[in-house]
């Protein structure tokens, strides 16, 4: 399996939507075929359409408040005494997480399709909140599907969604988390695909959905590339570390860099320990319309997962990451709940200006593990893809306080 030169990550698939000949595809009900083909055609047209690109850039700049900062974590670097640790602080975006990009692009596509209704799934509530906000901005009617367990543990985002005027559909089937929310949202789409645009919350689902998602979050690596040139005058040798839930933030953080040699730019993905299909050599399975590595039981049923982090509590992973893994371009490891909390504690003690949510705290565990082993001239950049406000209660409960 190989990455084809000169082709963007999202376009590495064959005509049936498979990456590396086996990941992804379109395992969907006949009813949704035509709407999904239409969406695919529209998306391919829009991404070449100057007017649409201008509109997208306008929204990124004015509504999402433009570029997010890149800065060095001096104290953490000094403390660990190894590689330089840099933070691409995506949580500074209007919307507090990378989900802002694909929520906004999906709302713009919905509008371009002439549809008035938009639906999406959410786990941590970051995609739900951003979709609700984008829908309000673009005058669309929005429904968000969310597991009842997540509604409880991510209450601040639920409040945001309601205030933005979205209807929240609680999902209590199965484990009442993200996997069930995505299933229920897809069911809703099958029943309403003639009038409704489906926005999938991560780089998962049938081909077009994961493409739209990773296309949108790629803004992160475009900015990073520019910022690196400004800061270093070149693209330095570095490691890019990102948490992996569905894999949308990592895909966006890495997409501009996949064609660089691994020795120049290393890509490291960090899964949550008990939701880690890439780290645990999980079997290939079909979930939510795509073939992917996924946690299953001996009968082929999708396994229930556990993570303290609602955004990572998902048994599957983006076909894009399965592809990056099997081509050897990226490597994947995992961090436990406790390791993520310890990383959060250390980083926020030393660096009061960053407040990573529990999701990026997982990748900080790997950053902290790696840095002391490396020289001072080596560079690690991590994607601080979400803000911790939504996890305030959990953090307070687990470490005894929430840093101010």
């Amino acid at each position, binding site marked *: 399996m190989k990455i084809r030169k000169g082709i963007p990550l999202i376009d590495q698939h064959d005509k049936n939507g498979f990456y590396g000949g086996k990941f992804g*595809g*379109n395992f969907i*009900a*006949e009813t949704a*075929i035509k709407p999904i083909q239409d969406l695919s055609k529209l998306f391919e047209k829009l991404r070449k359409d100057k007017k649409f690109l201008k509109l997208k850039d306008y929204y990124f700049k004015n509504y999402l408040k433009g570029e997010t900062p890149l800065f060095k974590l001096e104290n953490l670097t000094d403390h660990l005494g190894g590689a330089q640790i840099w933070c691409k602080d995506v949580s500074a975006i209007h919307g507090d997480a990378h989900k802002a990009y694909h929520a906004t692009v999906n709302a713009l596509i919905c509008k371009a399709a002439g549809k008035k209704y938009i639906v999406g799934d959410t786990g941590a509530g970051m995609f739900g909140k951003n979709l609700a906000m984008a829908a309000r901005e673009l005058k669309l009617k929005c429904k968000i599907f969310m597991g009842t367990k997540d509604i409880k543990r991510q209450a601040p985002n639920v409040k945001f969604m309601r205030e933005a005027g979205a209807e929240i559909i609680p999902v209590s089937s199965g484990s009442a988390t993200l996997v069930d929310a995505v299933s229920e949202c897809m069911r809703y789409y*099958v029943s309403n695909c003639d009038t409704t645009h489906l926005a999938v919350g991560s780089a998962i689902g049938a081909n077009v959905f994961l493409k739209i998602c990773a296309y949108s979050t790629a803004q992160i690596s475009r900015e990073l590339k520019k910022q690196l040139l400004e800061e270093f005058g070149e693209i330095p040798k570095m490691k890019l570390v990102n948490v992996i839930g569905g894999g949308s933030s990592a895909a966006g953080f890495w997409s501009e860099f996949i064609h660089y040699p691994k020795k120049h730019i290393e890509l490291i993905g960090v899964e949550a320990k008990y939701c880690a299909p890439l780290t645990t050599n999980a079997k290939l*399975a079909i979930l939510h319309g795509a*073939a992917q590595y996924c946690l299953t039981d001996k009968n*082929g049923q999708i396994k229930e997962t556990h993570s303290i982090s609602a955004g990572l509590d998902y048994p599957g992973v983006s076909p894009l990451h399965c592809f990056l893994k099997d081509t050897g371009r990226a490597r994947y490891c995992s961090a436990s709940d406790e390791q993520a909390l310890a990383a959060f504690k250390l980083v926020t003690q030393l660096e009061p200006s960053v407040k990573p949510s529990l999701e990026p705290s997982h990748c900080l565990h790997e950053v902290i593990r790696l840095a002391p082993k490396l020289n001072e001239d080596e560079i690690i950049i991590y994607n601080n893809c979400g803000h911790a406000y939504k996890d305030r209660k959990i953090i307070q409960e687990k470490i005894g306080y929430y840093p101010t």
Partner: protein
Amino acid sequence: MRNAIDLAFQKGRVEKKPLLISYTVCGDPNKKKSLEILKSISEYVNIVEWGFAHNCPTADGPDIQNSSYRAIKNGVNLKDTFKLVKDYKKYKNSKPLILMGYYQMIFHYGEKRFVKKCKEVGVDGLIVVDLPWPNNKDIAKLCKKNSICFIQLVAPTTTKKRMKMIIKDSHQILYQISMISTTGKKLKVSSKEIIKNNKIIKRINPKKNVVVGFGINKKNISSLKKCDGLVVGSAICKEISTSLKNRQNPVKKLNKMVKELKRKMS
């Protein structure tokens, strides 16, 4: 290819009667009872569809979901399903049997192994909900080789061009999805609309048997008598849930319900 499904439709044509096709989930409410239900309703139905349960059924409404979750909770897996199919097929009054489910279960079991096992235990037909044409060409061919009818689906959203290609690659039966919906929703289109779509399909190839499903229940079934066959699924699965809730015997309740459905079709 001639199998029991063909013969059932031939008989239906001679009698000028639509076939009644039931859908239940193997293992719901438990292994033993689900087999008893199947045997009992075979008194009235012409073909039985049996679902093999998956825990992420993205095209099913709440009634069939509940049946699937109950079956999984009771520990049913494909091995059990095949064994129960074999048991059913030994029953003297057994009807042609169609297995229906999601591709993940087949993929996990192995496509070739799955079809081989189907043949071995006497499965007559197969529907895979989330493996639309042309992705199903390989498994359809494999089925044909093993005299199993692979059933293609056609939806209200399917374009005419696509429909022609699907029909060209189809075996004896086509499954017409009545409306834009998952299973188990209220019929949101008129019978007239369904029959209009049915005629479009029939006109492309009048030899194909076109069965209609999704949203069919005792209230609307008599208005669709002109079709070759009618599938009732969620309404039956719901009846199982209701009888469990009321501590009634689902075997008896379902027998009565299916009898009533059959009566409304004649």
